């Protein structure tokens, strides 16, 4: 079963710990501008949304790569970047609609989420649970349950009435 990083932005407290642990894990430094994940903040309005590679099925980054450096690993559900083939043209950065492909400010290489070989550190450190690494088949279950709970509440009122 493929696993996916599920983002539940309503649980995000905007602390940006995920950015720091991502850069430490991949580069050995704390530097959010080199992280694969970023919390996009409306700082003064109070909305936070973690943004990360969506590991698309029909990935625009794969489609535009002139050297076939990007490919899909179906077993892991992961879009893989092969640095031996990458020429650093950054077409993938242009093509990605989510900003999932980034540019490392120090090496100038393209960077993207690699799911930390199956143990994503952003998820591990997200104690509020805004980021979860779950089997694909349960990715939408919480939303379903929330919606069902509302319906259940309404129905109980109707029944009582």
């Amino acid at each position, binding site marked *: 079963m493929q696993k996916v990083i599920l983002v539940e932005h309503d649980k995000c407290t905007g*602390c940006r710990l995920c950015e*720091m642990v991502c850069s430490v894990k991949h580069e050995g*430094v704390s*530097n959010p501008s080199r992280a694969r994940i970023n919390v996009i903040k409306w700082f003064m309005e109070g909305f*936070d949304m973690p943004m990360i590679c969506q590991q698309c099925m029909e990935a625009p980054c794969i489609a535009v790569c002139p050297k076939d450096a990007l490919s899909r690993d179906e077993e892991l559900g992961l879009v893989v970047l092969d640095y031996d083939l990458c020429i650093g043209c950054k077409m993938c950065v242009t093509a990605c609609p989510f900003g999932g492909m980034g540019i490392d400010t120090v090496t100038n290489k393209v960077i993207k989420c690699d799911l930390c070989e199956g143990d994503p550190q952003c998820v591990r450190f997200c*104690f509020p649970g805004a980021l979860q690494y779950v089997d694909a088949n349960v990715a939408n279950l919480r939303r379903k349950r929330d919606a069902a709970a509302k319906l259940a509440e309404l129905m109980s009122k109707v029944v009582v009435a």
Partner: protein
Amino acid sequence: MALNRQIAYINLSTGEIETKPIPLEVRKKFIGGRGLDMYLLYNHTEAGIDPLGPDNVGIISAGLLSGTLSSASARTHMAAKSPLTGAVGSTNMGGFFAPEMTWAGFHHLLVKGKAEEPVYIWVNDGKIEIRDASHLWGLSTRETQNALKEELGEEVQVLCIGPAGENLVRYANIMNGMKNAGGRSGMGALLGSKNVKAVVARGTMDIEIRYPEEALEYDYEVMKHISGTKFAQIMGKYGTMFIQSVTNSTGLVRTQNFQHNQLLDAEPVECEHIEEYSFGTVGCFGCIIHCRHRYIVDDIYDEGPEYTAQGAFGWEVGCNNFETILKGNHLVNHYGLDILETGSMMAWAMELYEKGILTDKDTGGLKLEWGNDEAVLELIRQIAFREGIGDVLAEGPLRAAAKIGKDSLKYNIHVKGMSNLHSDERPTPALALGIATGTRGSDHLRSRAAIDLYHLPVFLLEKVYNNPVKYEGKFTSDYRDYEGKPWEVLWQEMMYMAIDLVGVCKYHCVFLSPNLMNFEHISKFLYYNTGLEMSPRDVWEVAERCYNIERMFNVREGFGRQDDMLVDRYFDEPTTRGLEIVRGKTIDREKFNEMLDEYYELHGWDENGMPTEETLERLGLDKEPSHML
């Protein structure tokens, strides 16, 4: 790595900016953050200077572990001679500013002189510029940040002042975000006096982590532990408002200035009410506790409130109305006012009004009656803009009392000219000694032995408080006792200083729970993140050195034993409410003085509270000012 972050000297009078590395020997002696700020303050000021004049310096800093893997490494520190008290001015705020300044290459900014016109300071990847801010003058803290984000990009972090700082209200704040406030001791007024509206940071420079894998593992272990504690869970749900329900039911809150020690009908201000207005909690940088709510009331959107908001706009001013707390909290954030001082000054004014010392003539017709919600909200505005009676109250306890005259000072609840928290320490000698001896004035954040209130068994007190230095006396579990308490105060002073050196939030150390970070954790975080090898005992020694230099600053300004004192009401007026065990309590003057004697002796200070020559020599402070930086 963190150790290569620089210091910048910014002369606003001449426009000169000089940057320097911070030598390792200085790091080993003072580590950084509040400690190194205090060293710089002592070295860059002369005794007796006007706090609002160009000779005062403002030092803005990040802790050594800011933006690293060390639990919540988010705190920004600022120091100067206080415009409120004339003693050490010092503040510490959460948010996102300090890590951003660290990614921009700097740990300390020392601002001196005075700009002719309003300016802001732009700190970006190793470069610093002084820029025109005339278009920002007069804006609220939120408007200022929005304008600067519009100008420089959404990613920048802004430390700024509001109208209160511009108008030199002596307890004006610095702010980052909606509610992260550097309060107490008037650091906002200091920036206002220098015509500095804001400091803006944006950084993309690496902070090299010395042992990344170990740092990740250790940080995870500590965070997992903290997140599992009951303390973190309730903080994440209600923030510090949870403290109200515990302390009020015991009888340990200060209501209507100092008239009672318990609010009888507390239901309307209890923390659960936040759920009606909240749409979630938020955290500072890297924090898993997330202790503040985002809330909406009427057309107001803001963050908070905390225990102090409940006190300031609730039980202190007799407004038993949760919405007044939410609205008052918004106004002080908007104007950049210290919430605690604002609430205490208003409560004092209301008691004076009740006693006829202040009349309608003085207040311009504003009815300062207990529970007058509209008057409270209007008075906040008047203080921020120094209008009417607000202009007098903006001066802080001692100057305002001198202006009002009569016996108004007798009713003010302060230490060293800074107002007390909205808690009542008459039944709790450890807490009373803590506020009396605070270097920046009455202070619950630099020495409070809060866990003393938990009646912990002696073996547990020994486990916490005998580490890493052993106390030779006896501990007592009863919070009404005087025995062993001076050491608890001293130990907490060292703990809070240590956590301020590295820039981690106090809620992550032994403060409200005995089960959180201590000197050992700081030692390990320092090693994994920076490679600095310092034992818990070494960290303690640095904290002691920094605390002593803070004390030396006050001694140089003429503060002594007479200033480490509570107001008479603590000794003369017994408590009347609360549990049986806290009723009829005053602080015993003789026993208090005995505690003070022991506290001085434990510190290695003389009977007037001055560090002795041997103490200074032992801590390597005998040649100060030494001008290493």
